């Protein structure tokens, strides 16, 4: 049995050329059989259609938006849209997912994906209302923040219920780590995809659809959905995530010594600081409302807060998630507890990846600390750790490319190469992209991050279970196929764990399922075989489990090949930062722990071996590609001397 056009998939891919205004449709099912959905379809199109000499900001680059296969149904957590492109951060594959209402509307309008080509001659936005697709003038919105844009367009079109995705000034100014924002918050954060959107003069996309999505086996599908929700109602992990989002990990992160302080100089914050900025207290104090997204079976991980005191009194915004707290608040040593909300709101308004801010400003502050740069470099600003005002000022300078901000806007790796003065050591990045993930002290998390094809990042294979409190150990052993999933300091077995997670993450992305509903977050939640059951009930496609997993591996290998075509990445780019290799953890529960680079390299050898990639170079070998149906890719890589 194969996928029928009218089950789960909307059936159409929209292709929009902003240079000549041409709009056309093609069939999703031409791609879905081998590439599943959204991010899988996108990498196939990008690999096939982008010549090796294309660069991220030129009209020839393509920006592909994809709604996950299950969007439009009440499948658990089915609200993730994907954006993929040739990204300016790494120069290779860039891909980012976010919750969105727009993704669901796109499905109801009849589309699974949108390919944006070319560049508009002046700012435009894309309007999709069922069959009616228009490229409309957006000059009056250019320069506006994402919040202003949402308010203005809802007013102009007299529709207070419109949902959009948009870029802010950061995207417009081609800030290398610019993001794309959903309504007022939730971000397609990584890779600089917002800058690519800005380079095309595309301000926003609006989608509205009155169509419907059918599933192949409706009663079975709904029974599965209900059963999962009933299981979730019993889950402690789900309960914590519902109450505090990912900020719920605070106590665990302190216990396992994994909190970035002062640009990875330390892996824990001082005890008094921990008391001062305890994020759960902030949420409890200022919470006013919940926020959920379509299909969410966690009953929403979001909270709206209203701050009625302190330096940001009057701010009403959705609360940030953990990454903002660790990668900006603690990384830059800020002690004002409501700062995390303010900085999250500002980054959402201006449309910039919070990881760019953490990476670039972290680098700058450490350079200032070490007197590598001074006020002559920083427009007179004193970049002292803990100065919240300076951080907010720098964010604005970055997003508007003013003065020193113009250098920081390039990300820490490029900023360090511009400034020089041996500052590169403090520019923590992987494959050129600013790093968020603390890589010492948890080797599975580390390996998944360093090998990520999108340049650092923990949602393409990194595992969280090593340090999870109350881990269901027997289930974890079963899911990962290793005996030591609960041992973060061990190097053995991690490669196998990463392989499982690389598959799960990609299937989640293609189906549009939120990672936090799955075994990534807690081993008792939805795993790959269950996802296959839901997929089969939805599409009618009775595909075997091995073939389902193979689709994800095929996608991974094509991402790898895409990177090989467009960048110089090889084994050296799958290593942790020099700081994480050389320095031991100075304080906290893991004080004294230092990475064993020999063991890391052995772990990496094992990773390449199980992936069928050459150990010296990391390049896929011919047999691996042929077995995945990628024989032509093997020919391409051989031509450029990059076949393993």
């Amino acid at each position, binding site marked *: 049995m194969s996928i029928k056009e009218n089950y789960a998939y909307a059936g159409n891919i929209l292709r929009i050329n902003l240079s000549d205004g041409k709009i056309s449709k093609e069939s999703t099912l031409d791609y879905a059989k081998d590439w599943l959905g959204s991010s899988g379809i996108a990498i196939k199109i990008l690999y096939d259609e982008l010549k090796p000499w294309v660069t991220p900001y030129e009209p020839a680059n393509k920006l592909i938006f994809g709604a996950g296969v299950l969007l*439009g*149904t*009440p499948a658990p957590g089915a609200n993730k849209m994907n954006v993929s492109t040739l990204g300016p951060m790494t120069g290779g594959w860039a891909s980012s997912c976010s919750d969105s209402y727009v993704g669901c509307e796109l499905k*109801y309008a009849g589309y699974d994906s949108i390919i944006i080509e070319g560049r508009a001659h002046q700012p435009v936005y894309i309007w999709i209302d069922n069959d009616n697709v228009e490229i409309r003038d957006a000059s009056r919105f250019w320069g506006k923040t994402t919040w202003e844009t949402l308010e203005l367009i809802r007013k102009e079109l007299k529709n*207070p*219920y419109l949902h959009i995705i948009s870029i802010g000034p950061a995207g417009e100014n081609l800030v290398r780590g610019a993001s794309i924002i959903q309504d007022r918050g939730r971000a397609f954060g990584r890779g600089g995809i917002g800058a690519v959107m800005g380079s095309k003069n595309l301000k926003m996309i609006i989608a509205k659809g*009155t*169509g*419907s*999505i*059918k*599933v192949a086996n*409706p009663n079975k599908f*709904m029974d599965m*959905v*209900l059963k999962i*929700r009933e299981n979730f109602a019993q889950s402690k992990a789900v309960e914590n995530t519902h109450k505090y989002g990912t900020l719920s990990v605070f106590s665990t992160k302190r216990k396992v010594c994994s909190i970035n302080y002062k640009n990875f100089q330390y892996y824990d914050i001082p005890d008094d600081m921990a008391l001062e900025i305890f994020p759960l207290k902030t949420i409890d104090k200022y919470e*006013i*409302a*919940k*926020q*959920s*997204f*379509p*299909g*969410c079976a966690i*009953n*929403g991980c*979001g909270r*709206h807060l209203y701050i009625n005191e302190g330096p940001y009194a009057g701010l009403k915004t959705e609360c940030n998630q953990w990454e903002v707290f660790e990668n900006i608040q603690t990384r830059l040593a800020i002690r004002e507890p409501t700062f995390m909300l303010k900085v999250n709101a500002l980054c959402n308004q201006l449309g910039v990846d919070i990881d760019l801010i953490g990476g670039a400003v972290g680098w700058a502050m450490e350079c200032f600390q070490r007197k590598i740069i001074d006020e002559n470099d920083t427009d007179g600003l004193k970049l002292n750790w803990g100065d919240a005002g300076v951080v907010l000022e720098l964010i604005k300078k970055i997003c508007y490319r003013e003065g020193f901000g113009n250098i920081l806007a390039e990300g820490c790796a490029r900023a360090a190469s511009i400034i020089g003065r041996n500052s590169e050591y403090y520019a923590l990045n992987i494959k050129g992209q600013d790093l968020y993930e603390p890589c010492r002290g948890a080797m599975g998390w580390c390996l998944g991050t360093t090998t990520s094809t999108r340049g650092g990042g923990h949602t393409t294979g990194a595992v969280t279970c090593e340090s999870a409190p109350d881990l269901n150990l027997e289930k974890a052993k079963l899911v990962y196929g290793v005996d030591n999933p609960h041992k973060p300091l061990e190097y053995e077995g991690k490669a196998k764990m990463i392989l499982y997670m690389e598959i799960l993450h990609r299937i989640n992305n293609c189906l549009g399922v939120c990672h936090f509903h799955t075994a990534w977050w807690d081993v008792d939640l939805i795993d790959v075989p269950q996802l296959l059951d839901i997929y089969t009930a939805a599409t009618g496609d009775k595909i075997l489990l091995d073939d389902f997993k193979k689709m994800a591996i095929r996608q991974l290998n094509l991402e790898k090949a895409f990177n090989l075509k467009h960048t110089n990445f090889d084994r050296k780019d799958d290593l942790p930062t020099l700081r994480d290799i050389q320095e031991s953890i100075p304080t906290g529960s893991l004080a004294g722990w230092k990475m064993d680079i020999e063991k890391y390299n052995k772990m990496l050898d094992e990773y390449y071996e199980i992936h069928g990639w050459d150990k010296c170079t990391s390049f896929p070998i011919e047999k691996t590609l042929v077995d995945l149906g990628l024989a032509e890719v093997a020919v391409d890589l051989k031509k450029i001397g990059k076949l393993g």
Partner: protein
Amino acid sequence: MIFDMLDCGGCKTCELVCSFHHTKEFSHQFSSLKVLDKKSGIGYQILLIEREDKINIPCNGCKDIETPLCLKYCGEKDTLEKIINEFKRKKLE
């Protein structure tokens, strides 16, 4: 009829399962309830369709099954149940 639901998170799962109840398909169009953004204040508004017209299917409280589907799938079922009951009561009046 429009009701204020302060603890609604806006996931709109209720709309999809209601649509499923009527048509076995998923669409906001076929739902007897609509979750609406509020201009100000917290939570969302729940609009319940009273009368049938060209595009709208009225809410009949899922009278042919034990538990209304929207309640079965809602994470804040207690609040939504109060709204559904009030709707039923007012409709009878």
